[in-house]
């Protein structure tokens, strides 16, 4: 079930709480790399299309995770793995930890999340982006955290930030 990453290239995961920071932060991480690629959230446009549908129903957290996984699979298939095959250093921003963070904060079982994201190869290095806490929440289509905040009608950034801080404390990722 797991996608086999090519032996070439390097996969870096970067999890963020402000979608608007994604590209700039990824570029900073890649400064010294000659061959580079960036894969950002919603490359498949699933969330953008869903946001623009004129329906009143809202997805529940479990549905959101399944959609996040579908988008991530699309990114791996079309962006991340092809770039790795070319020997590039690719920053996936965000990556699986964002899915785990959301699942954790809404109480989804870790075993279920592990299974859903079983296909995703492990990153060679993992980072989180520290950012200012008082910035205004971006639009729902600017990032997954913003999208989920909009759906659940609650600013989820502090909870995501606290999850990523904990990962850093446990040595799972470093901050940039």
């Amino acid at each position, binding site marked *: *079930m797991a996608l086999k990453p090519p032996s070439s290239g390097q996969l870096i995961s970067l999890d963020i709480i402000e979608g608007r920071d994604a590209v700039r932060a990824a570029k900073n991480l890649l400064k010294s790399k000659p061959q580079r690629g960036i894969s950002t959230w919603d490359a*498949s446009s*699933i969330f953008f*299309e*869903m946001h623009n*549908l004129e*329906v009143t*129903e809202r*997805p*529940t*957290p*479990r*549905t959101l995770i*399944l*959609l996040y*996984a*579908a988008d991530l*699979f*699309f990114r791996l*298939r079309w962006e991340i793995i092809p770039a790795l095959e070319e020997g590039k250093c690719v920053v996936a921003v965000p990556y699986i930890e964002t899915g785990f963070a959301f699942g954790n904060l*809404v*109480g989804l*079982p870790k075993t*279920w999340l592990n*299974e*859903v994201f*079983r*296909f995703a190869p492990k990153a060679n290095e993992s980072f989180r982006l520290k950012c200012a806490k008082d910035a205004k929440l971006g639009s729902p289509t600017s990032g997954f955290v913003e999208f989920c905040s909009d759906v659940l009608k609650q600013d989820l950034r502090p909870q995501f930030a606290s999850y990523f801080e904990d990962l850093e404390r446990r040595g799972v990722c470093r901050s940039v």
Partner: protein
Amino acid sequence: MTENAVATAKRLSQEIHKKGKDRGFLIAFEGPDGSGKTTQRKLFKDWLAGEGYKVTTTKWNSSKLIKPIIRARKNMRSINQEEFCLLHAADFRHRLEQEILPALVEGKMVVADRFLFTALARDAARGLELDWLLHIYSPLYWPDIVFYFSVSPETSGKRIAATRTPKYYEAGQDVTKIDDPFESYQRFISRVIQEYEALSIIFKFITIDAEAPIYDQHLLIRKLFEESRERPWPQWNEEAIADWMQMMPKAREAAVGS
């Protein structure tokens, strides 16, 4: 899972159980394309309504929220097996939470034109592991009855060919890589039927001979349904109810208030 959701789910489960045959009932119609299950589902639904039951129908891949997303990608032929699976699982979860469970809690008859077994059969036929699929669809909510409409691959192929050219994903061209949709359909539906046959044993489907006369099938379904009305509510669905209450606080409020 929060204690509150678990406790409420337990209470609700006991209440459903106590209702006996007046409780909501989920009846799934499963089978390959061309097996006539939609015809039977409609006949059955009309009969149920005539008998005075409140009936809700749910169809595969029909949520207002996710169906348009899947359709656009199918039209572009841009999704692979795993994305196909995850998007259908999202559509299923959404309908389960928004349509099926609320209707069952209200005591309605829910008639499902395809249920999660469609995904298990088709996705397994596309080469995905059954174990992963069961996880993706968990927590699982099991129907009270699954009618499985059994036909041979040849009959399914003939019936489809008589009405239309199978579409790209329906014909399984994404996995067979065969250009001719009819030939591809024949190859793919044979695999799907194999998977269905295996599932029908594991999950104890009630098999209906879908090559028998239409009205005979209908009468048999009515008889089997009436015989099954005394079935107790499956306790293993409690986990799915608890999950639903946790994911949808409004559902919990409605259930507590009912």
